[in-house]
């Protein structure tokens, strides 16, 4: 009965090709969708332009500080929305079901979305750095610029996992609303809009609970305003990524 063995084998090169093709399609598809790419890139850059550039002196500490916190804010978006909203809509519309029926290599779907989120997050960092280094008058060494790009590209991953988890909780068009309920309060509570020192003591002490707090410590360090060791924040972010990914895959396996 085992006539599976009789079938043409899939050469490893074609398997790799399928992964690449999936990632490419995912990127093209979202870069071409204004309803995704515009809010995700404009939110953080317009805020930075208003609060970091227009309301502050170029080259001030404030514009440097805000470059870090708006980078954190901007990097979270592609992760949460690129993963969460699209997963919720694709579960609803039947695309996920079709992909599961097709011989797509396992993992290509998630990996494709991950690559897309990393690229869009990097794009957001580049836009913010351009604004900061020119209009904001922030000066940074090339090494710090690279550190900022790395923080963006990898820092998006725990938020992909968080978005994915939220995307398993809700189906369809309701997801962006729910994601904003996560996104905006979390940004506020992590000190991305107002420095933590201006928040009540209770909220300050709770800040390390939120993944965005840890990413913000990394971007602050990248602009030279960090304090303390960084490894703990990297580990915290990795921990969030693993936990949310595990929760999300468990729910997806159970619910489809």
């Amino acid at each position, binding site marked *: *009965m*085992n*006539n*599976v063995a009789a*079938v*043409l*084998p*899939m*050469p490893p090169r*074609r398997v790799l*090709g*399928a992964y690449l*093709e*999936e990632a490419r*399609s995912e990127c*093209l*598809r*979202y870069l*071409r*969708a204004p309803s995704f790419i515009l809010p995700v890139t404009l939110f953080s850059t317009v805020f930075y332009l208003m609060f970091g550039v227009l309301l502050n002196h170029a080259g001030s500490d404030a514009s440097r500080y805000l470059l870090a916190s708006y980078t954190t804010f901007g990097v979270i978006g592609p992760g949460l929305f690129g993963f969460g909203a699209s997963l919720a*809509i*694709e579960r609803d*519309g*039947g*695309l996920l*079901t*079709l992909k*599961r*029926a*097709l*011989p*797509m*290599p*396992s993992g290509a779907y998630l990996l494709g979305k991950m690559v897309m989120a990393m690229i869009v997050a990097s794009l957001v960092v580049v836009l913010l750095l351009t604004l900061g280094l020119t209009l904001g008058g922030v000066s940074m060494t090339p090494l710090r610029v690279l550190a900022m790009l790395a923080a963006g590209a990898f820092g998006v991953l725990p938020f992909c996992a968080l978005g994915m988890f939220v995307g398993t909780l809700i189906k369809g068009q309701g997801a962006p609303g729910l994601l904003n309920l996560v996104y905006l309060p979390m940004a506020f509570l992590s000190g991305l809009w107002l420095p933590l020192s201006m928040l009540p003591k209770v909220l300050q002490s709770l800040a390390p609970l939120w993944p965005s707090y840890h990413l913000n410590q990394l971007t602050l360090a990248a602009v030279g305003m960090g304090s303390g060791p960084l490894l703990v924040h990297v580990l915290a972010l990795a921990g969030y990524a693993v936990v949310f990914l595990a929760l999300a895959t468990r729910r997806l396996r159970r619910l*489809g």
Partner: protein
Amino acid sequence: MNTLDTPPVAALAGVTLRYGAVTALDRLDLAVRPGELLALLGPNGAGKSTSVAALLGLVRPQAGQATLFGADPQRVEARRRIGVMLQSAVLPATLTVAELLRLTASYYPAPRALAESAALADVTDLLKRPYGKLSGGQQRRVQFALALCGQPELLFLDEPTVGMDIDARERLWATMRTVVAQGCAVVLTTHYLEEAEALAQRVVVIDRGRVLTEGSVDDLRASVALTRIRCISDLDEVAIARWSGVAGASREGSRLIVTTAAAEPVVRRLLDADSALSELEVRRAGLAEAFSALTRPDTATQEAA
């Protein structure tokens, strides 16, 4: 049943599947043989799509077993030999038809050339268009192209012609005949009788999660070509069932129900036999009625024991 010794390309064996209190599939047996076009017919909610989902490994049965080329349907090696067109799938609107074809073809070991898939499904002129800008019928054709592009040995088409105009439907039928002639087996679910008549070598009628009848299109047509006579009469239904030309007779309270292929002589004989006969109704049994007649325990000769 000499075809039984060829192993099926896809099979359900005693599959039971419940969603909460609803039993979608009830100990269902189904086998798809290599190269055949099998139509799954049944009213909405009968369990056609659930059967397909079980064959594709999208749902896990609580009892029984689903196999695809003798293996677990969730194994990617088995799925590399199938093509799929689901009843509803919202594909990425901003990707072009060519991009969607390239992506789907990349999942398969030896796909068709892009131009060939496009020509087969009649989407050559749409290749550069974004999927989201296409009409409903065009989108279905693209989904059909995606189902074909991997050069599958088994094609699942779940209600493929819903939303298509007559022209597009007939072209799709022609393509289905072409791929079947090339040796590809097809599982087609439909609630259009004429679609099954036009294409299928074998028809399985499903209702309430069970196989009601299984056979050639002609067998099914014979059971659908019946006429139903209803009237109030106290004639003995057991005796009427033995009349010539009567396929079956039963009683629902005071109502007598007679099914026959030739209504006129039977009506004449009924009127002669019972002068008090009233509320006479003669109706041709449609497909839906054929299904409900099949499910009714008193008329079903095919009823499982």
